[in-house]
């Protein structure tokens, strides 16, 4: 049993950061939101719809509005980058092949990749593979984006690029984003809400709330450095939007 008495609400249009130690159930929770796993008891609702008991095609309808980035990318290894990223478009839209190719090119460009369309996943580096997987997750412009360790294996430049992209998607399209990450700095900068999974339950709040929390679990997980970082971040946010660039140097 991973969760016991877990109750958490993810608000529409916000970036949520799932925190917790290894084996605390972060990926399991993401899979439950995506309907890939069902809880033994209790319920998961996405956009008000109860996922338990739904048939696969009914779940499919809900999943059309969800993009998911898996930890290892989960790209189809027999298909090229173009085919992988274009697959949801080919399946669920009436776009022509040239239109799909153009859209794929745009999305790949937004994650910092050029001219990789003919390559197979095995020909990509780890970082490129994750970015292609990210491109596939957002190509349909979903309303909800689930990201399992989106920054893992990326160099600082690409961490910053993906962070900017996630923030932009959230701000411009109102995407609800759920991120699990060990890359604390990026995750904390983006997060509107933090959910710390501990002992099968969760402690949720804004970064500022968690920074001020006296809960032993929060203090234990974030540590003094994390809390100091949060406090500093809080200060910078108060100063206004112009402070974003300087946060990189925190």
């Amino acid at each position: 049993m991973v969760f016991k008495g877990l109750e958490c609400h993810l608000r529409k249009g916000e970036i949520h950061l799932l925190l917790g130690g290894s084996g605390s159930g972060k990926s399991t929770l993401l899979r439950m939101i995506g309907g890939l796993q069902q809880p033994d008891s209790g319920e998961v609702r996405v956009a008000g719809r109860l996922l338990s008991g739904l048939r696969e095609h009914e779940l499919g309808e809900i999943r059309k509005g969800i993009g998911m980035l898996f930890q290892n990318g989960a790209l189809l290894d027999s298909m090229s980058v173009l085919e992988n990223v274009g697959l949801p478009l080919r399946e669920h839209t009436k776009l022509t092949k040239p239109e799909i190719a153009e859209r794929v090119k745009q999305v790949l460009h937004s994650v910092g990749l050029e001219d990789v369309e003919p390559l197979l996943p095995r020909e990509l580096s780890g970082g490129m593979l994750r970015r292609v997987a990210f491109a596939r997750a957002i190509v349909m412009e979903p309303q909800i984006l689930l990201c399992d360790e989106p920054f893992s294996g990326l160099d600082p430049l690409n961490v910053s690029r993906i962070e900017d992209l996630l923030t932009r998607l959230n701000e411009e399209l109102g995407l609800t984003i759920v991120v699990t990450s060990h890359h604390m700095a990026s995750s904390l900068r983006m997060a509107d809400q933090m959910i710390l999974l501990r002992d099968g339950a969760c402690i949720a709040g804004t970064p500022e709330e968690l920074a001020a929390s006296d809960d032993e679990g929060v203090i234990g997980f974030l540590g003094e450095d994390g809390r100091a970082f949060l406090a500093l971040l809080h200060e910078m946010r108060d100063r206004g939007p112009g402070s974003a660039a300087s946060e990189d140097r925190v």
Partner: protein
Amino acid sequence: MIGLIRSLGAQATALIAGLGRVANFGGSIVIALLKPPTRFGFFIRALYDAGVLSVALICLSGFTVGMVLGLQLYTTLTRFGAEEGLGAVVGLSLVRELGPVVAGLLVTGRAGSAITAEIGSMKSTEQLDGLRMMAIDPVHFVAMPRALALTIAMPLLNGLFIVFAIAGAYGIGVSVQGLDGGVYLSGLESAVRFGDDVGQSLLKSLVFGLLLGLIATYKGHSCSPDAQGVARATTSTVVTASVVILLSDYVITALWDV
């Protein structure tokens, strides 16, 4: 004693539940077959993998089996002064039994195991979950084209196996042992009937292909998502499909003559 009965009961329940899951999966494949899109491109690719890439193995094995059959049967028939019957015996044994069964077992080892390993590996790397999250049914996208390809490829490979085996037996019986070629071919032609023998052969290979397609894709889909699970599923496909082919061979043979 109670423990033994309980254990037998648990095993029987597990077996029935397992058969139910296979039947359910088979139903999903049939439904997928009827649903658009047709996945024609994937089907052709799977047909190439299962069929075309098995051609060399089937031809070589068929020719070798035919050579052995020619040698053994010629020696045995000579004892009874019935060597003219070589063509008839080779033809009947190959068309009715050896062709579909040996081709079925060879395709199981080469293509069936490969399909299970491929799907199992897709499962362990979350590719199947990735498809689900894109609202794409993995049975429709992955299993259906492969199962269909095996069903179509099997009768074709069976035919190829029989042709090469007949040629192998001809090579030994006629070219090496000195039997008249006309006698061999006329014996073959008069003994093998299209409706009864070739029909039975085609039916058997079609059923074997269908069963192998179902077993190979089911094992891949249901394996535990790790290296050991994929290895176990691959082995299980070969063992299960081989036993099922041999059992269903008997059932079809018995029912055909009823």
